[in-house]
């Protein structure tokens, strides 16, 4: 195949401070801006019943003030410097970033080193944030598909905490205390459980020295609890149904899939692309989805059976999910849809894809890769994600692994992971259908 994707313009610099903080530096030529991220290896995965949602709530509290940066100051100062910032929580991590003009880099380093150790968790702020978190959950509940996703996720795991999701159960959100939150913070928000990533137009020696000055004196955590539970191999199909007022019938089907460290993830990424197009590598999905030639689009969307049909596979520390979902058009019978989907899955298991189809999928991923390289925020996002979920992997060669995937690999992973007895099937059936 004739492709020409430029390799990253500069090598990745990886260092570790004495307190255990991993530092990844990716200097780039180009615009005078930088994106600085701190990733903590804590998320829904590290929660137990009674404190579900605590990682996400802790993330919010890190915007609510330290002695030197009172509540609101972080947003104010970064915005006033012309930067953007955010924080978010996922099953495997909690992360914060600032993207700003390069001459404002110190502000990002000050903020992140300060809140790694000095967040106050003021009881009044905890109380008002409880309302905000609960209304965030209620905002999600306004989307009927939220309930479907939550139920399917829960049914997909009967042992591993991934089944709990991230936002937390309403009962836990009503009861979690300031002490619970502070303990969580002190346990997990430490340099030896964190990764600092910087991408942008900077001098690496100078930047590393500044990071060391800001973060070098923060004490490591004496003990970061590990997650012991391993999800056992599924023993048969699981099914759930949600009845809610909803505009369309929606299906969600999950298969337990391997962890990011597993050699099969490149082939699963190509399989996902063959099903429903190449997904962006960029932060917040900028770049758009490609793939109207994909199998699902042709079979389900072009034919009018579904308003949308997609698949997703994301990289995770422990085995997570390969997910297929579809929003049906009103005249489509759910059973008929499922039997057509089963045919598609069987075809993936029984026959290798053709060369043209394979090459098309790989080319989509190469293009998404090139698109993500345009943004320092996206570059830092990818480096940090991979450093959390599969630290032993080289982030610059993941695209090479994808280019090496064969039709036999794709068929083999479909046979291995996408089998009926490893799946969970969920349906959102509008409640008005039953009345």
């Amino acid at each position, binding site marked *: 195949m004739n492709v*020409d994707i*430029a390799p990253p*313009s500069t090598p990745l610099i990886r260092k570790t401070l004495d307190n255990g903080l991993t530092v990844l530096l990716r200097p780039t*030529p*180009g*615009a005078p*801006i930088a994106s600085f991220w701190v990733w903590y290896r804590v998320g829904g995965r590290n929660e137990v019943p009674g404190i579900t949602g605590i990682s996400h709530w802790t993330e919010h509290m890190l*915007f609510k003030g330290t002695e030197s940066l009172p*509540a*609101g100051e972080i*947003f*104010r100062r970064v*915005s*006033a*410097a*012309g*930067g953007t910032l955010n924080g978010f929580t996922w099953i495997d991590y909690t992360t914060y970033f600032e993207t700003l*003009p*390069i*001459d*404002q880099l110190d502000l990002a380093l000050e903020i992140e080193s300060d809140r790694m150790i000095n967040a106050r968790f003021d009881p009044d702020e905890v109380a*008002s944030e*409880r*309302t*905000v978190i609960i*209304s*965030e959950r*209620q*905002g999600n509940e*306004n989307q*009927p598909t939220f309930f479907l996703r939550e139920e399917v996720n829960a049914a997909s795991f009967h042992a591993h905490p991934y089944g709990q999701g991230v936002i937390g159960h309403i009962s836990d959100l009503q009861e979690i205390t300031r002490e619970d939150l502070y303990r969580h913070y002190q346990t997990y928000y430490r340099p030896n459980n964190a990764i600092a990533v910087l991408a942008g137009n900077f001098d690496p020696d100078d930047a590393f020295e500044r990071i060391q000055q800001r973060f070098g004196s923060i004490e490591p955590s004496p003990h970061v609890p590990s997650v012991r539970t391993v999800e056992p191999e599924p023993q048969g199909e699981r099914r759930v149904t949600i009845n809610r*007022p909803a*505009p*369309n019938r929606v299906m969600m089907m999950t298969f337990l899939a391997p962890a990011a460290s597993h050699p099969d993830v490149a082939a699963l990424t190509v399989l996902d692309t063959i099903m429903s*197009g190449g997904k962006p590598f960029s932060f917040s999905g*900028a*770049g*758009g989805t490609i*793939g*109207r*030639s994909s199998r699902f689009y*042709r079979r389900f969307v*072009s*034919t009018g059976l579904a*308003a949308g049909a997609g698949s997703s596979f994301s990289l995770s520390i422990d085995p997570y999910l390969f997910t297929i979902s579809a*929003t049906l*058009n*009103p005249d489509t019978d759910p059973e008929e849809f499922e039997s057509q989907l089963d045919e598609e899955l069987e075809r993936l298991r029984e026959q290798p894809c053709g060369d043209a189809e394979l*090459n*098309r999928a790989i*080319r989509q*991923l190469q*293009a*998404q890769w*090139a*698109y993500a*390289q*345009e943004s*320092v925020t996206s570059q830092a996002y990818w480096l940090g994600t991979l450093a959390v979920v599969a630290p032993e992997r080289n982030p610059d060669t993941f695209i090479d692994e994808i280019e090496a995937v064969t039709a036999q690999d794709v068929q083999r992973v479909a046979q291995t992971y996408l089998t009926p007895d490893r799946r969970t099937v969920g349906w959102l059936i509008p*409640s008005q259908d039953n009345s």
Partner: protein
Amino acid sequence: MKYEGTPMTTEHDTPSVSEAMPLVRETRIDNGMRVVSLVPDKRTANKSASDVAVFQLRLMAGSALDGDMPGLGRFTTLMLSRGSAGKNLETIAEELDSLGATLGFGCGRLTIDGTTKSLAADAEVVLGYLVDALRKPDFPQDQVEIIRAQMLSGLRQAENSTRALANRTMREMVYPEGHPFHNRASGTVESVSAIDRSDLIAFHERAFQPDNAIVAVAGGIDHDAAVALVEQHLGDWTGTPPEIDIQTVDPPAELRRHDDTLPGKTQADLAMGLPSINREHPDYYALSVANLIIGRFGLYGRLGESVRERQGMAYYAYSQLQAGKRVGLWVVNAGVAPENVDRAIDSIIAEVNGFNEGGPTEREYADATGSILGSLPLGLETSGSQAATAGDIVFHNLGHDYLQRYRDIIRSLTPEQITDAARRHLDTSRLTVAVVGPDRE
């Protein structure tokens, strides 16, 4: 490497690297189309961007031309990529996917945009697909039915969304019946069901014309090469789009409010609107700084601070100044627990009135202007954002040196001008308010 950057305060003596801003280059070809790009400053040129190329083609037509068939412009635009120049959807999709390229279309009130993104080496091939879609769409009947079903499904989902419904209700109240912005651009179940293939063909013939169209390019394709490509692929296309008459609207004499409910919801959404200025109005910059302070800056400005942070009653509350080419709309959106709706509306109004009375604090003024000035380089990072910026500058007649003048425009604004603009344009006693919340039977 070290930059001589000065701290981002509002006073600058020496231009730093982040001060270096590109010029817009524009070439008008014989049929009236304008090819535009940013001429990069060599100190800030982003090398890695050259792997990617973006074309953004904007036609001067949109859903304001729908007439008595709401949704017609949107429907026509959605059909463009479903078959053109004798190639069906499947063939086009295979060829674009085999390049990893994207081709997308959007229909606004006054504009129709077609955008491509590809690896730079494939730019010409991908431009060919964009041109075919705009000039020679086939409107295959089977695809007409599929797009109709998708639009109807989208309408049903919007009917089920508290936020979408609140915004729609507010807009329908602000723009009276008969105004081109009264109807939803996505149409209604009745209108979308009734549109047939000949309506789409007629809309295409009438509205899709090259005169004054803007082709913005960015990334690994240079201006002269882009002009040559546009002349080659589009130079023989001629025609002028229909005039669009957009009247300004007056706000109601006093505050109006409409409440609706939806079953199965837990949160209420509210939309508050006020007709506002267009992009070329002399108050635009002062009012956008006022809006930034009121409902955008940091975590949504004073509204976020009051409604979300201090009172903890909303997950979000923010404002937007939508200053269009002809008319504008100022909007506040908030998502709140149903029992807090009245309190949230009162406190939003109190915040806006407070700003109108006292104006920005010294710090708010410095923060807001610093934010606008500092964020300029971030907004020009990717090929997509460069093309969009160049296109917007030309669309709004801002001048080719706009980016170079922009800092001075912002620095010259005084707190008094900002306060005056807010007083003139943010009269909360004439708001239109729509609330959609849970059905509590």
